[in-house]
């Protein structure tokens, strides 16, 4: 399989390309920027915004580490420190981790399943805009000293009306509404794309593993996110109109908040890390020149993880004094989830063992992922035991655990994946040397920063403390952690600089620089605005590795935006549907919705009056455009599903 930098296999001849490109083009200038529905355009913006929030969250973490480097350091006062660690958690979990995984899916899913665009392009655009509005609101509040201060979990009654004065916890609760609406919108769009718009022949057994992980992540988002929306809506109504959901004196219960929050909270961390598994599978297959060993076992493991994730949220509440027998059930459930993870680890290593691994930078991140994530997963098994958890819960041992599984399990695969798909997204190759340096700094900095936290946690240092006294003996390890944090920050800086420089001056990357097997490598780099002029037919798991020729189907309309719909399991072509043109309504609806959300913090009547402009925007958005079947004027007989 030569590393052909020449013409991509699916290139249309020039005039058909020009015609189709004009149909699918995004208007230029600001109007185009605000109205685009091109999944690639939105995906790029989503990824860049996610990385910006990753850097902001990282700077907040650096501030925390600088404060904790020495005991009793008066660098940051407790109020500012509480805002900083709450902002760090909220930014990383709600503004970086979940959105950027969905952003990668928004860009890559259509390309990997052979579709021209996402299922609901305007909903995608709305998802990005409402996510951006939430991020802007949170950081505007941080500047105005109204940032959240009760942690990213914001337990009641500390975040309740009496103990969190002012509008800080309201801003947190409203940010949840912003990011969850964004997450749900993107999840519905991703799930529909994977289920209904796969290339003909891509049966469920030939769906790429990244697409599988995104499908399961979307189902988890759909079921889990309403829980945190309820928890934060109950919290904000407690704080603004005096309801009693978490007021123990009037029948409410602070534990209701924890149940609702963690019923979302634990699936959330799997929502963050399942896409990471999908990315690892893709990178491993390409760099070992072998399809991933045990594909059905991998898919089954993803499904099991997705399903089990909803059955073990109480392991976050072992210290709240719930009945011990109930806790033991959650011990068993929490430990069971180690089985699918362990099986997947075996399959990746088996793929390396049986294939011929080449250690490009993405592959380094896969090795780093395995080394780091397995350690984090095992410390997770330790935390699953009720007696042990009562000792290490809410200490720095837990901080070390979840950084190992989140940074190790999701950020390493993400950094590898961005490096891996960067040539496809920008058409330019990032430098390997800078990539290796970045990996070395990130890997060693990460371990230097977070491994000592295991020890400090065992030595009794609680979580979320703005300082500690000298005689506790935690000073040395904390200093080590701070040094490691700076090295990690340097590594991330090198990584991002490498991409920024490569985006302008990197060598031109052909359609398939790494010799990958997926459909996304069948288009040019960067792909044309319509992704696939002719729809590929899939006959195996890695279509580009099957032989010298790629079978394609022609005939999709070239005068209007048309996409092919296929059946769910066998991906047999069933019908053609029009894809919406660029529209300003997602952006305008976001403005109206943001005004409603932010206004309702300051006066609850905004919910009533603010919903009128939102309704008007939604009506204008969904007001039917000239229908596709009239535009195409093909004979309407044989409409699937009609009764007559």
């Amino acid at each position: 399989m030569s590393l052909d930098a020449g013409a991509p296999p699916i290139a249309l001849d020039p005039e058909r390309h020009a015609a189709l490109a004009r149909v699918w083009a995004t208007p230029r200038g600001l109007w185009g920027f605000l109205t685009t529905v091109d999944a690639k355009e939105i995906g790029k913006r989503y990824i860049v915004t996610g990385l910006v929030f990753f850097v902001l969250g990282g700077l907040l973490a650096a501030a925390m580490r600088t404060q904790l480097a020495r005991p009793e350091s008066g660098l940051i006062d407790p109020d500012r420190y509480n805002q900083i660690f709450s902002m760090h958690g909220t930014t990383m979990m709600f503004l970086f981790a979940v959105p950027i995984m969905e952003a990668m899916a928004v860009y890559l899913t259509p390309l990997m399943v052979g579709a021209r665009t996402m299922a609901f392009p305007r909903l995608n655009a709305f998802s990005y805009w409402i996510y951006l509005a939430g991020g802007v609101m949170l950081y505007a509040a941080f500047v105005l000293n109204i940032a959240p201060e009760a942690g990213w979990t914001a337990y009641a009654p500390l975040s309740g009306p009496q103990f969190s004065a002012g509008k800080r916890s309201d801003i947190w609760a409203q940010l949840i509404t912003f990011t969850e609406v964004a997450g749900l919108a993107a999840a519905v769009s991703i799930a529909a794309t994977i289920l209904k718009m796969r290339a003909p022949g891509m049966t469920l057994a030939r769906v790429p593993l990244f697409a599988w992980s995104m499908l399961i992540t979307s189902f988890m988002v759909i079921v889990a996110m309403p829980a945190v929306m309820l928890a934060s809506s109950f919290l904000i109504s407690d704080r603004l109109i005096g309801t009693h959901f978490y007021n123990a004196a009037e029948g409410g219960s602070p534990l209701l908040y924890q149940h609702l929050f963690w019923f979302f909270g634990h699936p959330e961390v799997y929502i963050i890390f399942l896409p990471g598994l999908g990315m690892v599978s893709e990178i491993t297959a390409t760099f070992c020149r072998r399809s991933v060993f045990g594909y059905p076992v991998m898919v089954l493991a993803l499904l099991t993880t997705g399903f089990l994730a909803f059955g073990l949220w109480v392991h976050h509440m072992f210290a709240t004094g719930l009945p011990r027998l109930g806790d033991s059930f959650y011990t068993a459930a929490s430990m069971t989830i180690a089985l699918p993870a362990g099986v997947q680890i075996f399959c990746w290593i088996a793929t390396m063992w049986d294939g011929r691994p080449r250690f490009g930078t993405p592959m380094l991140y896969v090795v780093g992922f395995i080394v780091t994530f397995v350690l984090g997963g095992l410390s997770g098994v330790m935390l699953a035991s009720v007696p042990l958890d009562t000792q290490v819960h809410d200490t720095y041992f837990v901080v070390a655990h979840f950084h190992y599984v989140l940074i190790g399990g999701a950020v390493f695969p993400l950094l590898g994946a961005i490096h891996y798909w960067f040539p496809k997204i920008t058409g330019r190759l990032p430098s390997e040397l800078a990539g290796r340096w970045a990996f070395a700094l990130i890997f060693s900095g990460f371990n230097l920063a977070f491994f000592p936290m295991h020890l400090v946690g065992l030595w009794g240092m609680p979580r979320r403390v703005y300082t500690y006294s000298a005689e506790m003996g935690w000073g040395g390890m904390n200093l080590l952690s701070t040094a490691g944090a700076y090295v990690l920050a340097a590594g991330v800086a090198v990584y991002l600089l490498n991409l920024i420089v490569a985006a302008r001056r990197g060598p031109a990357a052909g359609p398939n620089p790494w010799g990958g097997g997926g459909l996304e490598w069948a288009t040019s780099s960067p792909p044309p605005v319509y992704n696939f002029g002719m729809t590929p037919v899939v006959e195996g798991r890695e279509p580009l590795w099957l032989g010298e020729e790629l079978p394609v189907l022609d005939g999709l309309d070239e005068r209007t935006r048309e996409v092919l719909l296929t059946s769910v399991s066998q991906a047999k072509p069933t019908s053609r549907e029009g894809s919406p043109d660029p529209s300003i309504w997602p952006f305008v609806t976001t403005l109206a919705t943001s005004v409603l959300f932010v206004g309702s913090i300051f006066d609850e009547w905004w919910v009533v009056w603010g919903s009128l402009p939102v309704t008007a925007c939604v009506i204008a958005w969904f007001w039917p455009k000239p229908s596709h079947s009239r535009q195409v004027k093909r004979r309407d007989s044989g409409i699937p599903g009609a009764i007559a």
Partner: protein
Amino acid sequence: MKARVVGDLSILPPAGFRSYGLWFWAGLGFMSIETAGFALAIGAYLYLMSSAPQWPLDSPSPDLLWGTLQTVLLLASLWPALAFSRAGRRCDLAATRRWGVIVAALNALALVIRGFEFPHLNTRWDFDVYGSIVWALMLLHTAHLITDFIDTAMLVVFLFTHSVDVERFSDVDDDCIYWAFVVLSWLPIYLLIYWAPRLAS
């Protein structure tokens, strides 16, 4: 690697009804989100009820009249909705318009009755946790009544003012499915809000 054309997709019909079109899947997605939301809110209600010494805490149970009237109306409206959907799937414009007006009217009536239900709940959201969760469940369902009313009304206006083809008929069908969801999601809420206090005491 070269591309080899092996077939022609232009013979395929335009989008069809139910699962053959993308809109149905959007409706399915949002209904599953709302199902998760309803289920968790009902879970919260039961959680609070089980941990309370008595239920309702210290206010009378809601009056049965308006709630039961609402349930009867919603269940009765299922038949016109079914007729509306079948007319749509037969692409019979006249019947679709007629049933559309009826379903929209029933939806409006349901909203009016809901307006009467709220004062007869006999509690306020800021009285105690019983009042809070009852109002939360009622407002959650009312939001869905309102969104479906706007959706149906918009569709009916479009049916009367524009020429209609298969996409719009499939919209009619999707709207009926969403209305059935709104009705079916009301049943557990009705039992909880109106009958749980009576059975619990």
